C-alpha cells in the first residue's frame, strides 16, 4: 500500500514537472505575430529586404483575443500612412498589401488599442541591410 502510494506520488511529480515548461511556453507566446514579406502568398516568409516591384505585405495575426489594429508605414522620405481600425479575428493571418515604388528603408508599426505591439524595418531595392 505504502509502495503504491509512493509510486502515485512519483507519477504526479513527474507529470507536474513535464507540464510546467509547456504551461510556461504557452504563457510566454507573444500575443501578436507581425512581419513584412516580399509577397502576398500563404508561404511568404518574413524579410527585411525586398526587390523593387515586388508585392510587399504587412502581415498580422492575433493569437489571443480578436482585436482592432492599426498598421502604419513610414516611407523613406519620412511620410507616414496608416490603415486604421483593421478588424482581426483570433488566429487568422491578415495582410495589408503595400504599394511603394520608393527605394530605401521603410518602417512598419502595428498598434492595438493605441498601444504599439510591433515594429518591423525593411528595405526596398538596395542591398544595404535594414537596421
Amino acid at each position, binding site marked *: 500500500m505504502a509502495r503504491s502510494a509512493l509510486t502515485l506520488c512519483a507519477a504526479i511529480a513527474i507529470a507536474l514537472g513535464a507540464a510546467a515548461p509547456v504551461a510556461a511556453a504557452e504563457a510566454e507566446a507573444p500575443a501578436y505575430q507581425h512581419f513584412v514579406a516580399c509577397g502576398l502568398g500563404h508561404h511568404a516568409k518574413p524579410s527585411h529586404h525586398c526587390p523593387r516591384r515586388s508585392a510587399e505585405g504587412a502581415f498580422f495575426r492575433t493569437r489571443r483575443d480578436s482585436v482592432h489594429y492599426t498598421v502604419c508605414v513610414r516611407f523613406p522620405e519620412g511620410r507616414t500612412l496608416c490603415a486604421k481600425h483593421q478588424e482581426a*479575428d483570433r488566429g487568422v493571418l*491578415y495582410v*495589408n498589401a*503595400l*504599394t*511603394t515604388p520608393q527605394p530605401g528603408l521603410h518602417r512598419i508599426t502595428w498598434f492595438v488599442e493605441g498601444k504599439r505591439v510591433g515594429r518591423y524595418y525593411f528595405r526596398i531595392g538596395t542591398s544595404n541591410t535594414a537596421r
Partner: protein
Amino acid sequence: MPMLAASLLLIAFPTSAAARSGGGLASFEDPPVVPGATSTLVRGRALPPAEAPPAVTAAIRAGNRIRARTYIWGGGHGSWASRGYDCSGAVSFALHGAGLLQTPLDSTSMMSWGAAGPGDWITIYANHRHAFAEIAGLRWDTSGDRRGVSGPRWHVDPADARGFVVRHPIGY
C-alpha cells in the same frame, strides 16, 4: 510622369481607400485581406485573398454586404437593394459588385452567360431551378444551410456540379 504612375496605382488598387498618400505614389491597402489565393471564412464573412484581382475582391465584399439576408423568391431582381435575395439574385448581386453584371439574371439566363466551364476565380453553376457561385474557393449559395436558415451565405464545402451548367465571367 508621376501623375501617370499615381493613376495606374489607383486603377490597380481600387479598394485601397483609407491610406492613400496625398498626391504621392504609395498606398497601403485597407481593409486587410488574407494571404494566398483562397478566401477564408470567419464568422460567416468571407475574407478576400491577397492574390485575387480587384474585381474578385469586390465580388466577395459585395456578397458580405448581403450575407445575413433572408431568402425571398424574386429578391434582388426588382432592385439591387432588397430585404432578401433568391439564388440568382444573390449571385447577380455579387457579380454586380464586381462590375461584371449590369442587370440581374435569373438562373436560366445564367446557363448561357459568360463563357463555358469553370473560371480561375469565379465559377457560376446554373440550371432551370437553381444557381450558385464559387468565388475564390468559397461557395456563394442560398441553399445548404442548416434547417430553418435560408438566404445568401458563404460555404466552405465544395460545389456539387452535377445537374448544373458551369460558366464563368470572361477573364475570371
